């Protein structure tokens, strides 16, 4: 029995495209963002029944009302992003920045709360130093455990680091309830009425410190990834484990070392939260971790580009929050929708940068000849 087989050539052929010029790629991304803004505009128009241009203008206005907060939030998001990019560059999916920062912050808060109680004569400098060390240690533990299991047993790091977040969250919850005798589940501002022990002194205002740290870390990470031997090894392991082994790199060591670096940065961030930004710990502290993954990915793991992407996301967030209060929507939620929609478009447009689509018009004539 002969089955009748129709010859069907697919309409188009998709192949990988390595050589998209920078300008064209940028143009595609800008088009995607414009398309997203159009959709957001239409959506806002339906919901708010206002001219979308007006909405965008008010968004712009609103974002810059509190410039210091805008910059501080950018700085915090940026540091989060810096913590994950070395791992991502290595194709190690570290989704655990949330938990790493929480663990660090928790350790710092613990020092801040209990050391002055036990040793009232402790000097503020020493306390701050101990807080920093404790925070970094805790963060490193949180990041290195999944790294070790990945290196030696190839344990799925995405799932492991994800779970570490929730262990940290639950631990924070437990500690807060244990430490806070009122049972409110809210630690309050630590040492506010206790001589502000463990508070890092403000440099002219309370925002600048985070911004300075972010700038320094960005510069460090840029140099580390681009110009150091370590950075070279990280890129090489991400590029091809086989080639890395071929040139004699100890891949296990690189994985563990790189995650320790991520832990270090998360530790610094946790310390900043405890000592300068919030002086307390709650679930919000690690909340930017997932956004940071998006920001890092959007910047293609380049720390300088991440300056832009993290600013962009914080700007959107602040702007849409302002819009939603201005037009009596409710705050955070509208911002989440806006950020989500814009991301969907940007994520989708990467396809048109990474792949080439060829339509098969001329091939048909070839096929006809075959059947002669």
């Amino acid at each position, binding site marked *: 029995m002969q089955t009748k087989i129709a010859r069907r050539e697919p309409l188009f052929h998709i192949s990988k495209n390595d050589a998209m010029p920078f300008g064209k790629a940028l143009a595609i991304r800008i088009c995607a963002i414009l398309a997203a803004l159009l959709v957001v505009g239409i959506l806002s128009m339906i919901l708010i029944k206002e001219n979308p241009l007006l909405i965008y203008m008010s968004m712009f206005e609103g974002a810059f009302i509190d410039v210091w907060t805008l910059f501080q939030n950018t700085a915090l998001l940026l540091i989060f992003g810096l913590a994950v990019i070395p791992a991502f560059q290595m194709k190690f999916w570290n989704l655990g920045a949330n938990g790493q920062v929480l663990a660090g912050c928790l350790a710092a808060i613990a020092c801040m709360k209990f050391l002055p109680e036990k040793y009232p004569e402790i000097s503020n400098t020493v306390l701050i130093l101990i807080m920093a060390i404790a925070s970094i240690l805790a963060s490193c533990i949180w990041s290195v455990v999944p790294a070790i299991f990945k290196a030696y047993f190839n344990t799925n790091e995405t799932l492991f680091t994800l779970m570490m977040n929730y*262990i940290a969250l639950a631990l924070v919850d437990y500690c807060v309830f244990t430490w806070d005798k009122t049972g409110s589940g809210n630690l309050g501002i630590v040492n506010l009425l206790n001589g502000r022990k463990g508070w890092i002194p403000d440099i002219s205002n309370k925002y600048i410190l985070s911004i300075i740290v972010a700038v320094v870390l960005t510069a460090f990470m840029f140099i580390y990834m681009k110009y150091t031997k370590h950075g070279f090894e990280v890129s090489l392991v991400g590029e091809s484990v086989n080639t890395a082994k071929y040139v004699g790199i100890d891949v296990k060591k690189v994985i563990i070392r790189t995650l320790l670096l991520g832990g270090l940065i998360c530790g610094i961030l946790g310390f900043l939260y405890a000592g300068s930004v919030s002086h307390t710990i709650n679930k919000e502290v690690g909340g930017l971790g997932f956004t940071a993954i998006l920001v890092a990915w959007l910047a293609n793991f380049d720390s300088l580009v991440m300056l832009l992407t993290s600013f962009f996301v914080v700007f959107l967030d602040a702007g849409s929050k302002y819009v939603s209060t201005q037009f009596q929507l*409710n705050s955070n939620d509208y911002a989440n929708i806006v950020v989500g929609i814009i991301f969907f478009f940007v*994520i989708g447009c990467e396809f048109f940068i990474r792949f080439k689509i060829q339509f098969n018009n001329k091939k048909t004539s070839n096929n006809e000849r075959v059947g002669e």
Partner: protein
Amino acid sequence: MFTSILVNAIRMGTIFLFGCIGEIFTEKAGHLNLGIPGIMCIGATGGAFAISIFGTNVNSALLVFLSILFSMLFSGAAGMLYSFLTVSLQANQNVTGLTLTTFGVGFMKFFSKRIYDQKLFVSLSPAFQNLFGLKDSTNPLVQIFLSHGILVYIAIIIAIISSLFLNKSRSGLYLRSIGESPATADAVGINVSLYKYVYITLGSAIAGLGGLYYIMDRSSGTQIAEAAIDSFGWMAVALVIASMWKPLLAAVGSIIFGGLSILDAMLKTMSLSEQKIFAIFPYLLTVIVLVLSSVVKSKNTQPPAHLGLPYFREDR
């Protein structure tokens, strides 16, 4: 006491079970969908839409049916979006999933505040809660087995059907082959993209029911916007790993996870902080399962081999 803990554990666990079964389908197709928490929120919103639209205009059975339908349509659409981005457009699964979660949480909170009418929702919630009308029975066996709302039974039925589907049906076999080795599936003529679309969407639709269940049954219509549905979603993702991608184990695991998350409220003799420690155990258990299965290298407890990796035919 024990009966009441078990009954509550089953009811709490049902939220996780929906999310978990949905995620199992997705992961069996080789996709790690971190958007499940968001999808559960979207499912909750879909159900809420149905309730606020149809409300008292239809009889309770029809209302339950319509809200289930709406919930699945909404969350299924979110699953479609995820499939389109990750299957057709080859986007990074983690990034897409996390974005979907951000979006979904915002979506729920934004719309639920517009459509939520507490009085209406609370008054309609009994339709979801007491399938056999035996809720107030004092017999422990009746309490454990027959006192729940319709969605609890639907969850268990879905778990059983999923297990049969994955292990005993041809399509289930094909689906598993795609998560393990899409190139092999492709080579024997299975339509890899179609399967991925269908089962990611179906999985999302199932997960969405978890959201509906929470607002209408578990919380008796008292909350939407404040609901921590996304955190239940993460628990569901954890349960997938802890149950080693097996729906029946997931059903058992959901009761354990459910139990651990309600124990704090049940154990009044404990201090508040001691109660809180129970929240760590589900995740700790998950990590232990994950680590042990990778150390032992047992093939039957591993994640699908191609989980999280894009499949592009010309890469083979």
